[in-house]
């Protein structure tokens, strides 16, 4: 009998995926919906003390946020990180993957480990090291700029230089992970494709454009989506390196959410920031997917 067997298979499938589904439900869906609910309340330190103080206030948190210049400052800062940080990280990752994947490179595993290492090092420890590197008087970065008669630049003390400084640190810290994704994609490109293009007269740029890039396009999409999401969610880097300063120039949306929720205990407002951030990431990702799909057609 075919039907009972299929039913048994379906039941077994649900049973086997149940633990994972339960974990997703408990640790993702419940908190997500709880945040959505919290964002519609005035949950604050008084409500923490006594839940009877909790009031449903509809979309007031959202309305307040949209009229709050500090929120817009944080939003613009995050947008800046996404706009400049994403191409920087994706470009660095892809360039590193191309170099590591080069057939004549020696000591490949060593290079792979060296370039991947920043990703697995402790963020706070490396951020402290980078603070020293960016030190105006004694930092290595200004010392090197001195060779070309530039600087010194007050990297972490100037509102204009602090964002590039943090972006450099973020790019250094995260490009290794994306490099591994690109490397996996590059290693799946058959060598014969590149060789066929060489025989067809394509140069390095031609091969990159016509053979390699189309072959790794799905990896590009994945890395770009992940990088945009991580750029929108920057928190620890500005928190450790600049504490949001100078003059709020490095406060990101997540940093703003942290301050709303855990510094000023406006948890309802903080949850509203989280929901807006989620919608923002969703919107950007959807636009990106639509653009890619249109290009593929």
């Amino acid at each position, binding site marked *: 009998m075919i039907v009972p067997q299929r039913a048994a298979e379906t039941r077994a499938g649900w049973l086997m995926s149940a633990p994972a589904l339960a974990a997703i439900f408990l640790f993702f869906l419940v908190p997500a919906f709880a945040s959505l609910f919290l964002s519609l309340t005035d949950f604050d330190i008084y409500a923490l003390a006594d839940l009877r103080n909790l009031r449903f206030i509809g979309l007031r948190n959202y309305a307040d946020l949209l009229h709050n210049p500090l929120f817009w400052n944080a939003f613009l800062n995050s947008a800046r990180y996404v706009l400049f940080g994403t191409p920087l990280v994706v470009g660095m990752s892809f360039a590193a993957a191309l170099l590591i994947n080069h057939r004549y490179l020696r000591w490949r595993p060593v290079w792979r480990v060296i370039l991947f290492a920043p990703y697995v090092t402790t963020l706070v420890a490396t951020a402290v090291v980078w603070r020293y590197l960016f030190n105006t008087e004694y930092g290595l970065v200004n010392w090197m700029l001195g060779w070309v008669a530039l600087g010194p630049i007050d990297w972490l003390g100037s509102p204009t230089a602090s964002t590039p400084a943090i972006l450099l640190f973020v790019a250094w810290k995260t490009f290794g992970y994306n490099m591994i994704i690109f490397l996996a994609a590059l290693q799946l490109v058959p060598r014969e494709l590149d*060789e*066929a293009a060489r*025989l067809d007269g394509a140069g390095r740029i031609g091969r990159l454009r*016509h053979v390699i890039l*189309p072959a790794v396009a799905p990896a590009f999409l994945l890395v770009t989506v992940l990088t945009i999401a991580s750029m929108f969610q920057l928190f620890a880097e500005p928190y450790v390196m600049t504490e949001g300063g100078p003059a709020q120039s490095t406060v990101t949306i997540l940093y703003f959410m942290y301050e709303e929720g855990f510094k000023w205990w406006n948890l309802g407002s903080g949850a509203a920031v989280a929901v807006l951030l989620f919608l923002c990431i969703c919107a950007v990702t959807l636009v990106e997917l639509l653009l890619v799909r249109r290009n593929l057609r």
Partner: protein
Amino acid sequence: MSGLRIEEACKSFSARQILDRVTLDIADGSFAVVVGPSGCGKSTLLRTIAGLEPLDQGAIHLGARDITRLPPGQRDIAMVFQSYALYPHLTVRENMAFALRMRHEPANAIDRAVRQVAEMLDLADVIDRKPGQLSGGQRQRVAIGRAIVRKPAVFLFDEPLSNLDAGLRARVRLDFVTRHQQLRTTTLYVTHDQVEAMTMADTLIVMNQGRIEQIGTPSELYARPANLFVARFLGMPEMNLIAGTMIETRGGITNVMLPSGKTLAVPLTGAASGRGARLTLGIRPQDLIAHGNGAMRIDASVRLVERMGSRTNIHVVADGIGALVWQRQGDCAPEPGTPVQLSIDASALHLFGEDGSRLNTETLKEHA
């Protein structure tokens, strides 16, 4: 004039010598096939000619041009890979047009050339499909079309039929020969399949361990293998090899003693070996004769029968010699264990010296 000449080509990877002083002349317009076992260096030879691997030593000339140091795109050589290497994101039309686009040829000239080749290869109906939507045979034709559309001086083929099923392979083999007769472009074709090699080649090149063992027409190599390797490599089933010892050479006849103690008179002139030298006698399975009156009679018993339809391969164990394969025309199936009497026609014998090289130089029996 676009004959291909390879002089003293050497190539090694790490400490392993892949090509060992390979010298080769392929006449303009000929269809040369390189055949050899896996790892013999035949694909590396092709890749060095294409410019995908640099030579350690030696030179490659295409007509009067020295192309040894030229990049692949400037050699005027097209190659069809075993995997076809079609660009998966491009349509059949775009795949075939790719090389012409890289040369910045005018769009209408590219379109005309692609259409012409697509019609020639029966690809007009699928010209706007991507490789993933094609059958194995169609992909293979696209790969050939991509090579043809460039009008190169030389075609290189790296085992292009190995991914096709047996029936399709036989059809495409004929197709290859027909196309070559139309285009007359110098072609170097690499395969490990001796049927492909024997049926397609004008010039057959047998390679082993990075060296060329023998060059000639397929029938020359089959009838007069230069050494034991070529003798065993060409022919299906393999040539029977029997160890022997030279007794004496007199009047153009050499007497050879077989392991069974029997002697055999072989017509042989100019043998370098002396009395007592170890020899190897080779006899093709179809040259063993049933109940014949050949120079030597062999008593054997049937061990195994392979019925091929039009012919039958009978594996026998011969007294004092060991295992032999006997090929008969038609379908016959003696029972295992049946005693048979075979005889050897001495004019069909191949004789090899201690170093494996051929000893008999006279014309041997013509094979049908």
